């Protein structure tokens, strides 16, 4: 069964269908384009320009998720990335061609991964799901406009294809790459990993991850209305983008403090959050509201949920006996939070699981957080960040330093003993 499902090239423009022969041709062409040195000035300039376009585009402006990407790609941010990169020991070169399979739930990630790999000097092959959304459409459009105006050679090093998953396509693209990046959770990783890679290629995988936010209840109770409104805004940004379905979206709220303070703190926080959702016109559909209700009922019937808070359809809180409920039941998202009570933040160390990714925190001192990070020791929680920063993009992700992963370390020495390293000129 060949030629069964359509394949379209999306980037660079124009969007054209490709048959298998044309695909093979495109892959060959891509492979022949030379890599750039890491953080080549023209490439850095391109992304700065892309950032500018994303900030200016009217279509892009309505999406805070896209604005977050634009923020990450702005000149000052890239300069900082560049400095950090240069400070790494050893000479660095791009790996070659990076094949990205981004997730369906966080539509900006395909651009994020592409940008980091391109800044590292690589060629990029990106799969885009045919299940398109407004966000990915806007990104593709702005990206194509920026590439059309670009003279850095990046256009020749970029190919983005839209297709339904098919083993033979995955294989063809995998055989052409030096790095394969699989986002999309356990299912995607399990399925696509079975497709073989060339021996020289490495693989980065992003399996199912869970995230949550922790609050010092004393601070929630003593906060002024204005302070609480700000906390609720930060929580909104962390939780409601991507309908709470990103792996960094907090799905549980850990309330740390005395037992008597927990419920009042929860009520206060959830009510404030409901105000924010109303103000930002975030609406939960009827079927989502019914789904949340059924989810709550199922957990209540089993004794796992002891109390339901329902200030509005958009904000539902379920008091649970333990964090375990988060792991066992598929969370329906769109504004549903499991409420876990702890006496102290330190108790979290015993509850952490390797699939836990991000802890967003509010109201704790630095010492407490550092102690927690120390006692967790890589058993999970690769990201411990302030509330409001859960979805912030970073090259440090899920235990990877992506700029490291996208480059090779080289050991190049001359006879001169004084020279410890040479600047790497990478022509792969």
């Amino acid at each position, binding site marked *: 069964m060949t030629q069964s499902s359509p394949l379209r090239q999306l980037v660079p423009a124009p969007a054209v269908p490709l048959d298998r022969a044309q695909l093979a041709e495109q892959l060959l062409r891509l492979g022949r384009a030379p890599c750039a040195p890491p953080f080549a000035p023209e490439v850095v300039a391109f992304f700065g320009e892309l950032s500018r376009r994303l900030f200016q585009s009217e279509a892009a402006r309505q999406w805070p998720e896209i604005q977050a990407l634009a923020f990450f790609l702005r000149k000052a941010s890239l300069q900082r990335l560049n400095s950090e990169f240069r400070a790494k020991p050893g000479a660095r070169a791009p790996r070659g061609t990076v094949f990205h399979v981004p997730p*369906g739930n966080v539509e900006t990630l395909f651009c994020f991964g592409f940008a980091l790999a391109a800044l590292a000097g690589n060629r990029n092959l990106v799969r885009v799901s045919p299940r398109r*959304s407004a966000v990915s459409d806007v990104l593709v459009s702005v990206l194509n406009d920026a590439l059309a105006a670009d003279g850095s050679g990046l256009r020749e090093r970029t190919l983005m294809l839209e297709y*339904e998953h098919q083993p033979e396509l995955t294989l063809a693209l995998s055989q052409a790459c030096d790095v394969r990046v699989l986002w999309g959770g356990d299912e995607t990783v399990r399925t696509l990993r079975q497709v073989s890679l060339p021996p020289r290629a490495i693989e980065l995988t992003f399996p199912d991850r869970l995230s949550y936010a922790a609050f010092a209840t004393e601070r929630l109770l003593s906060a002024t209305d204005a302070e609480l409104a700000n906390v609720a805004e930060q929580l909104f940004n962390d939780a409601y983008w991507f309908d709470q379905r990103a792996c960094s979206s907090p799905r549980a709220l850990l309330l740390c403090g005395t037992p008597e303070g927990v419920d009042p703190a929860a009520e206060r926080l959830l009510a404030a959050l409901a105000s924010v959702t109303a103000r930002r016109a975030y609406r939960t559909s009827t079927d989502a509201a019914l789904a949340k209700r059924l989810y709550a009922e*199922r957990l209540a019937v089993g004794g796992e949920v002891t*109390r339901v808070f329902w200030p509005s359809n958009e904000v539902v809180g379920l008091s649970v006996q333990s964090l375990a409920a988060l792991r066992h039941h598929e969370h329906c998202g769109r504004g549903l939070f499991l409420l876990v009570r702890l006496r102290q933040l330190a108790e979290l160390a015993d509850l952490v699981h390797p699939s836990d990714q991000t802890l967003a925190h509010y109201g704790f001192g630095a010492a407490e957080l550092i102690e927690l990070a120390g006692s967790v020791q890589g058993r999970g929680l690769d990201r411990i960040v302030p509330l409001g920063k859960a979805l912030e993009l970073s090259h440090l992700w899920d235990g990877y330093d992506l700029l490291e992963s996208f480059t090779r370390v080289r050991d190049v020495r001359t006879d001169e003993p004084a020279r410890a390293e040479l600047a790497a000129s990478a022509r792969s």
Partner: protein
Amino acid sequence: MSLSELLERGPYGVPQAEKERLLLARLNQLTARHRAGCPEYARLLEAFRDAGPIAGSAAEATSLSGVPHVSVGLFKSHRLTSVPEADVFKTMTSSGTTGQAVSQIVLDRDTAQLQTLALAKIMTHLLGPQRLPMLIVDTPGVLRDRKRFSARGAGILGMMSFGRQHCYLLDDEMKLDRQRLTAFLERYGAEPFLIFGFTFMVWQYLYGGVEDGELNLSQATLVHSGGWKKLIEQAVDRQEYRRRLATRLGIRRVHDFYGMVEQVGSVHLEGEDGFLYPPSFADVIVRDIATWREAKLGEPGVIQVLSALPESYPGHAILTEDLGVVHGIDDSSCGRFGKRFSVIGRVPRAELRGCSDTHAQSRASA
């Protein structure tokens, strides 16, 4: 006792205010009974106690909309019973399309008898006290495979006790068996008879199997049930359906009904005016989709159904996944007391963006 009063007064003979009083007393009794007999239900009530209008009140309700209600989907994941296993007479299940979870409804003898009695009240009110000769727009095979006892089979089995000389109109390939139909009409067509079938099947296979004026089914009372989705897709609405059945087949008594396996016996039958009516021992509440309070007349919302019958499982107040609207109360043009409502259809499914799309095809919409 309020239940027997409701059953004796005739399915549409109780004005709403009085009905609510009687029904409320009975429903409060049932809530207490299920709370005592079903630990899972008790836990649910406890967890939802302060949740507001979405839950109803944990203490005794003072109005029908305050009676605590559960989601219809809960019966698909949990087998809830308020009686000891020894008293379980039958567990009804209902499967829709393959792959869907199955509801489990636990009946003791009393509840099963109440359901049969209740349905009989409704149907004899419509059809008269005698069993009528009955056409079934389905295949004999629908009842054969008891393991996969479908919603279709359950509906037919329930209705069969109101008919006699049951005649299945479709062969195993779902084609109309014209010989059987003409033979039936020759014997019984001159006197009142009953036709039962699923809404779409009646259209597709009976209506679709004959020509205009070919056959005379004017003595028929058609009772049908089931979704309108496929018909709406063909631009056939309720009025069009009736009009065409009348034109082609001479059928003038057409009655849709709204019911579910989670509340068997509490069937909401269509009146001559085209609206649905709850019987005296059941009711509907339409809830506003934002506030979950009872919606105003004429305003659409999610349908919640109430029934005085379920004694063995906590199904006396159920929130469905259907949208509907109540048009009026005690103002029927066909002499029925109670609420006058219609069903709009299933709550639309918003597309959920998952992180993976490695399935070959996304789930087809139901």
